[in-house]
């Protein structure tokens, strides 16, 4: 599919048209990760990508970040074609991605030092960003002195310091324990409300999707396509024990189960032929 002219509102935070990605294209190891993704994300919207492991939802995030090039189709962000990474689209990873040789505040202001900002300015911005994630007291600490949850908060602060318009999060809370994850979700919603940025959040946790999303994009298993988009119309702050929340969880579980079953069947077929 080809789109010569954008057929969408240029104000949209992220627009994907016919996006596909094939890894190692043209070789014998080639495998298709994503196919024909069409997606619009409004400014300030919270969108969760939900799907079985290996369905390409993280790949889509990397394409939107500009870290990888799409094999097919095009990604736009605020009417600019995405061709390279940009500070406007910050990416937060599952594993700790803090620089271990820098202090917390130096980590947070890393992007500013790339731009050549003065130390005073960097400190000021770092202080403000860390204040927003409740870690101002840990400014002078090193990443290995912090817990997993604190490190991810620093990573969020580092992303916020760039004042991004789009926050891309690749299973950021997957490595955390259940209690910490629930706290981090509340924290993220606060940050999101204050910053006004769009959030694209990858997870395979249905509970997390229902707790966070305005819309949940459900992916099929390999190659990843958009199976359906489920709007979560629960008022915020959300009561996750309500009947409506439970109904949504059941709906999403059913949608996912088909895909997981299909992925398993494929894997069994593969191992049978091998």
């Amino acid at each position, binding site marked *: 599919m080809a789109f010569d002219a954008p057929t969408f509102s240029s104000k949209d935070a992220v627009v994907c048209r016919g996006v596909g990605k094939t890894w190692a294209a043209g070789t014998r190891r080639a495998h298709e990760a994503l196919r024909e993704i069409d997606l619009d994300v409004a400014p300030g919207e919270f969108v969760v990508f939900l799907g079985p492991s290996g369905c390409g939802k993280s790949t889509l995030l990397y394409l939107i*970040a500009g870290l990888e090039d799409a094999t097919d189709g095009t990604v736009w962000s605020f009417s600019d074609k995405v061709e390279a*990474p*940009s*500070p406007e689209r910050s990416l937060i*990873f599952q594993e700790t991605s803090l620089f271990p*040789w820098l202090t917390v505040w130096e980590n947070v202001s890393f992007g500013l030092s*790339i731009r050549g900002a003065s130390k005073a300015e960097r400190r000021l911005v770092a202080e403000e960003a860390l204040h927003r994630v409740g870690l101002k007291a840990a400014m002078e600490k090193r990443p290995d002195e912090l817990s997993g949850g604190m490190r991810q908060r620093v990573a969020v602060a580092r992303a916020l310091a760039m004042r991004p318009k789009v926050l891309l999060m690749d299973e950021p809370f997957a490595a955390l324990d259940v209690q910490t994850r629930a706290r981090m979700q509340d924290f993220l919603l606060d940050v999101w409300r204050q910053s006004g940025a769009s959030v694209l959040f990858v997870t395979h946790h249905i509970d997390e999707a229902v707790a966070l999303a305005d819309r949940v994009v459900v992916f099929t298993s390999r190659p990843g396509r958009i199976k359906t988009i489920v709007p979560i119309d629960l008022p915020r702050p959300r009561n996750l024990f309500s009947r409506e929340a439970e109904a949504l969880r059941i709906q999403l579980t059913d949608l996912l189960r088909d895909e997981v079953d299909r992925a398993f069947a494929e894997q069994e077929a593969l191992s049978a032929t091998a």
Partner: protein
Amino acid sequence: MAVVAPPDVSSGVAAAGASRPAAVVRLFATMAGESLAAKILWTCLSVGLFAGLWELCWFFGWADPKLLPPPHIFLGSIVDQGKFFNTATRWQVGKSMTDGPSAFESVMVTIGATTMRVFSGLAIASVLGVGVGVLIRYNALFDKLVLPTITLLSPVSPIAWLPVAIFIFGIGNGPAIFMVVVALFFHMVLATVTQIDGVAPNLINVARTMGASKRQIYGRVIVPAILPGMLAVLRMNLFGAWMVVLIAESTGVGYGMGQVIMLARNTFNPSLVFFTIAVIGVLGFSFDWLLRQAQRRILYWLPDTKEKLRGL
């Protein structure tokens, strides 16, 4: 916080003088800890054990003192052996054996000369090796042009380079330093490339999303990220340099530890061989210790994992 001193310490001099066991207990307490004193004690014990076994072999007549002289013999004759060091200034035409520097001075001059060659070679090899390694990953054309040749040359033994060293540099410091450089350079290039390939992709991706240029990514992410690994490589190469420098010196250089070993071989002097080995061991150990201290200062962000391994 109140400090309650253990009784054997609080009683001080009186206890130390009065009871032997208290001193022994204190010694064991020190050795159980992780202090510098404990490390020194354990090092002495380790070396002492080795020397003791050797002395025992001599005592029972298993080790012929003419071939394998135990430590008390080869260390006892330092003054005699010293005259074989610094042969360049000692054995000059028109000078008698008794002229020139004292035995101690000769040993020091020789040690200084060899150490200088080791560190010159190590420094040149490190700067060139890391520089070329980074350049290989930085520039794809340079990678394609240079890496195959480097990989081809890296298994060549330094011995094979010896004639080349003499052809190009003649005799003196030149060939010795060249030998150290050539023995380390190729490995350091390959080690640097391997280290760069091992940098966590997320660290690079973070810098990329923040708009860092290629140069900034190399300078601010890749170089600090590979520093721990590179310092470990440097430590290994320090030992490598000590090994190679002896080969280089055994040929054409006027004086140096390698020259002393060759002299000992030619004059059938096992005491001199073992004395030189002991000196090299002490030097290598000391410089490795210094490098480890430097490593700890430079890599302030790395946690100490040795403790965890001890619990296994």
